[in-house]
């Protein structure tokens, strides 16, 4: 439960000092306009003479385009033009990939409109331009295309095999890259092979990270208006700044002639961290015709064309001493890139490279990842991006190791995690964790769950062969947030930095504008930034306006993803505010006829040390600066400031998530009975926003564990093409979460914050699956492939004894890269309507 208070809780703090905004559960400033519709979604935009686009998409997973005849479509009523890839072959460039993870990474190129070949179902092949949206969509079926079908490439292992069909004719294999980290070579630990060879206990497991669809609420939408030599684009994007730079490079318009605006954006979860073919197509068409254009996707288009997430095969080897001390971790990933490399596709699994070792102390570690091309929708960032996959694998295999050693899974974790007195701690993957207290979070979580009573209940149900069994699952996780120190990004071959910018303007009337380079799309930046600045400058929360998401009004930034907004962008705001105060101090000193060093600044007032009555408010200073009638010599008439902040390190939130789940052994249904999480995200700016982020994150992580999976059939069609078959759980399907926090302030930033945007998603998936497996272990079950559907659980139970034999160690009913749902349930045609 979180107390909600619109006003500051008290006029002053207990010690009589000024009231503080940070820490208050303020209701979000932005909600009123979002909820009442007094807002601007991209699709609401209407410009004079605007034309509408409809995109014709490939019905084939893999085919050569042998002929396109658009003449009939061009003659349809209301149609202005039809363009195909050939029309833009010279001008469209390639969708940029900003993360060439290795020097020899293969990037076959990614045209926005397919020119000679299609490589996944849903790929754009032609665009209709018409006077209205209906006319554009009506003309889609009049475009006549001949395809010469090629074999679909769906299974990653088959795709890498000798003689496999190639996705791209201009490559020699379906492998894009191999990225390796090894602790011996890196000097962060012992050589892995030594440790593997000397192991007392070795456990190998294969886990499947199923493919997920980001499923943001607002479908993607783009409006482009040609302006002079360049254009303005409104787009439902997380990354207006990255988009601006990349668009300039892709379509060849100078960067200063491109303006990108992300108006209110209805969610992204990484799915809008992209430079999309649709955005490029809009820019190309608008420029070609000299007209404003709009394109808004349907949900059906979104699920097959917007990038997907996850989709890895994880082969994990863990070694330990018989006493339970872990020694080595060897990770091999096959990461499905899909048909193309998009903005950060290759880097997503690599972001997990530093997190497989998690909170544990390994002697040696190796991470190898092969990026693989298939004829499926490209993958890229999805909430957590690499870290949920890593956390899942380590937390699952810790449970399996505990079972192997006949140890309590929590005892195994305690034995191996970094103790709180050991911070700062440099891990075997080379990360330095600044702070944390795994003991504290875990103890709190255990008591909130009522672990001991539930264990007793589990024993009773086991003894009585209750058809409903109880399972308890643990996830003691950490993650790296705050993407990112620019130097680290450089070392990882990312083509940009990870700094963030903020500017503060104090207006004549004392009101304050905060310009931020992060681009919120549902997170509550406006509220949180207002709270931070209210404290920094001592001005009322209501007097602050936060400006973001427009490259003209908020010109400098690296946008919102990777739980970076507060940890990097929020710190930039603090730095800018500090500069404002310093500039104001000089002017206040002049007004108070005192030495600047003799002034105190508190609660928005500069006062002369020792005589608090003798003071000037920051608003007084702002007005004096505005009139500039009497400023000290040589001082500029402005207290506005800006700052660019580059973090020295990531931040490392952590926490303990516990899940109690009831598994109905007759139907296979798993129902979460109780879910407890104790997150340590450092200091909290707004507990209500944190609560919202945690709840939403949990929902998405639980969704991976129990509900969601993008399934392709043997021809490469996405059979989960609508929300009838791609099951996104709602509040009705989830328990009431019990959330709490511990606070180990981050030592690497002045607010002590760590980031919370992805924590729930990263932590919850293994907690839930561990609980399901824990419930069923007496039945000989040691894994269930995600999502743990009732059918999969039922099958695992039916086949349990057989599957638990060592030879079959690994996933139950594993279907490789799943050319069909790995249960073979590929018969689904269409869905319910």
């Amino acid at each position, binding site marked *: 439960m979180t107390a909600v208070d619109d006003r500051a809780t008290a006029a002053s703090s207990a010690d009589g000092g000024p009231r503080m905004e940070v820490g208050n559960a303020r209701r979000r400033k932005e909600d009123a306009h979002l909820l009442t519709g007094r807002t601007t979604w991209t699709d609401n935009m209407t410009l004079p003479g605007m034309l509408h686009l409809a995109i014709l998409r490939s019905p084939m997973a893999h085919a050569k385009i042998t002929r396109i005849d658009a003449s009939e479509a061009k003659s349809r009523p209301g149609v202005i033009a039809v363009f195909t890839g050939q029309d833009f072959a010279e001008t469209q460039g390639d969708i940029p990939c900003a993360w060439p993870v290795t020097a020899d990474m293969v990037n076959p190129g990614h045209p926005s409109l397919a020119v000679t070949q299609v490589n996944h179902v849903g790929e754009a092949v032609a665009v209709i331009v018409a006077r209205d949206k209906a006319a554009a*969509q009506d003309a889609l079926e009049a475009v006549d295309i001949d395809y010469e079908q090629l074999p679909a490439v769906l299974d990653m292992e088959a795709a890498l095999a000798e003689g496999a069909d190639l996705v791209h004719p201009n490559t020699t294999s379906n492998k894009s890259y191999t990225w390796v980290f090894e602790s011996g070579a890196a000097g962060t630990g012992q050589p892995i092979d030594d440790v593997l060879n000397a192991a007392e206990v070795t456990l190998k497991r294969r886990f499947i990270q199923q493919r997920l669809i980001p499923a943001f609420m607002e479908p993607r939408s783009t409006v482009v208006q040609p302006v002079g030599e360049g254009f303005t684009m409104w787009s439902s994007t997380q990354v207006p700044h990255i988009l601006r730079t990349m668009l300039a490079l892709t379509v060849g318009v100078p960067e200063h002639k491109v303006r990108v605006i992300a108006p209110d954006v209805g969610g992204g979860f990484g799915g809008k961290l992209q430079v999309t073919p649709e955005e490029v197509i809009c820019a190309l068409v608008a420029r070609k015709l000299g007209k404003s254009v709009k394109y808004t996707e*349907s949900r059906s288009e979104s699920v097959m064309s917007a990038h997907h997430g996850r989709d890895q095969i994880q082969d994990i080897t863990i070694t330990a001493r018989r006493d339970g001390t872990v020694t080595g971790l060897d990770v091999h990933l096959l990461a499905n890139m899909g048909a193309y490399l998009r903005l950060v596709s290759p880097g997503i699994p690599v972001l997990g490279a530093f997190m497989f070792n998690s909170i544990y102390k390994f002697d040696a570690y190796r991470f190898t990842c092969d990026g693989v091309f298939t004829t499926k929708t490209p993958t890229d960032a999805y909430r957590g991006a690499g870290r949920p996959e890593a956390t899942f694998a380590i937390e699952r295999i810790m449970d399996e190791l505990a079972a192997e050693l006949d140890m309590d899974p929590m005892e195994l974790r305690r034995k191996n995690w970094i103790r709180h007195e050991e911070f700062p701690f440099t891990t075997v993957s080379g990360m330095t964790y600044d702070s944390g207290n795994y003991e504290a979070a875990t103890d709190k979580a255990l008591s909130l769950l009522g672990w001991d009573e539930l264990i007793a209940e589990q024993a009773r149900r086991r003894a009585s062969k209750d058809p409903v069994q109880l399972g308890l699952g643990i996830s003691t996780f950490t993650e790296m947030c705050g993407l990112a120190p620019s130097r680290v990004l450089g070392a990882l071959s990312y083509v940009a930095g990870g700094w963030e910018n903020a500017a503060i303007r104090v207006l004549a009337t004392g009101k304050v504008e905060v310009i931020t380079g992060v681009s919120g799309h549902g997170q509550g930046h406006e509220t949180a930034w207002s709270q931070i600045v209210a404290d920094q400058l001592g001005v009322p929360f209501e007097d602050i306006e936060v400006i973001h998401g427009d490259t003209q009004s908020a010109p400098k930034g690296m946008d919102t993803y990777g739980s970076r907004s507060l940890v990097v962008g929020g710190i930039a705001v603090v730095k800018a505010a500090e500069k404002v105060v310093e500039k104001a101090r000089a002017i206040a000193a002049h007004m108070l006829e005192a030495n600047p060093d003799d002034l105190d600044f508190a609660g928005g007032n500069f006062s002369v040390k020792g005589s608090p009555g003798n003071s000037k408010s920051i608003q007084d200073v702002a007005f004096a600066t505005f009139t500039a009638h009497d400023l000290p010599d040589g001082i500029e008439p402005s207290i506005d400031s800006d700052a660019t902040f580059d973090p020295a390190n990531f931040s490392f939130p952590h926490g303990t998530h516990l899940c109690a789940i009831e598994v109905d052994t*007759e*139907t296979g249904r798993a129902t979460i009975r109780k879910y407890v999480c104790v997150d340590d995200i450092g200091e909290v700016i707004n507990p209500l926003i944190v609560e919202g982020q945690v709840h939403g994150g949990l929902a998405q992580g639980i969704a991976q564990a129990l*509900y969601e999976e993008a399934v392709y059939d043997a021809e490469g069609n996405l059979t989960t093409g609508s929300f009838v*078959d791609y099951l996104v759980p709602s509040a009705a399907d989830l328990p009431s979460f019990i959330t709490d926090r511990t606070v180990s302030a981050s030592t690497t930033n002045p607010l002590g914050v760590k980031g919370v945007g992805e924590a729930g998603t990263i932590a919850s998936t293994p907690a839930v699956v561990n609980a399901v497996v824990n419930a069923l272990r007496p039945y000989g079950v040691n894994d269930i492939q995600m999502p743990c*559907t009732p059918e999969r659980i039922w099958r695992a139970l039916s086949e349990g004894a057989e599957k638990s034999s060592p030879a079959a160690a690994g996933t139950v009913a594993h279907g490789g890269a799943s050319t069909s749902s790995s249960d073979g*349930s590929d018969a689904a045609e269409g869905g319910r309507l």
Partner: protein
Amino acid sequence: MIPASFDYVRPSSIAEAVQAVGSAGEDAKVLAGGQSLLPVLRLRMSYPDTLIDLGGIAELRGVREDADAIVIGSMTTHDEVTRHPLIKQYAPLLAQATETVGDRQVRHLGTFGGSLSHADPAGDLPTVALTLDAQLHVEGPNGSRVIAAKDFFLDYLTTALEPGEILTAIRIPKLGEGWSSHYEKFNRVAQAWSIVSVAAVVRRDNGAIAESKIGLTNMGSTPLRASAVEGALVGAVVSPEAIGEASSHAAEGTNAPSDLSGRADYRNHLAKVLTKRAVLAAAHR
């Protein structure tokens, strides 16, 4: 997506509607709540040139008592069905099953008649109509007729409605003294369709089942009655063992589909488990 363009007619009486359907010809479609039809049109899986909207016909809406039955207008929305006192009293199975349909928005627009006419075997209400031995009143160019539910559902999305015919009302016999019912729905998320569901209506006599009607959702191309179970239940003591034994016949004579939400063998298994649960729950009401 936007549907292809169509003409739109909104008659205000059944007679006008029949007339409008007749004159619109082959490619006309009747529009009820639109909860199944509109997605079909938006995905351009169907291109009717005329839609005849039944939403303006007051006489198609509402619930009334008629001797030993209740009569429900075909355009009565799911939401009205779940809240109507006559239905709660005389056909609680229908109220219970309808409450599981989709979500609140769907239930405020979707109609009982639309659901039966659409005849999706995964739909919950066709099963209820079949289990309760409903009579379907139909009005068409050749006048009116009554079709028993058991003769109405012919195949996947196919009913006994002739071209031009409109379903006007559904007559459901009142649940008699000593009868009780339960709808056991099994789906994966709250708004999802049934993987398998079971409707059970039973009459208890002296601690045993005297009579029963068992309906199955999504175990074939139409809703089905589990007649082997109905037979086996006669005289079965109300105990998990005896009911379980009778329920083990639930998959007999069915033809369950295999799709993303379950292969046929899993559905066969579910049918048995859920039948047992439905019968026990009904018998304990």
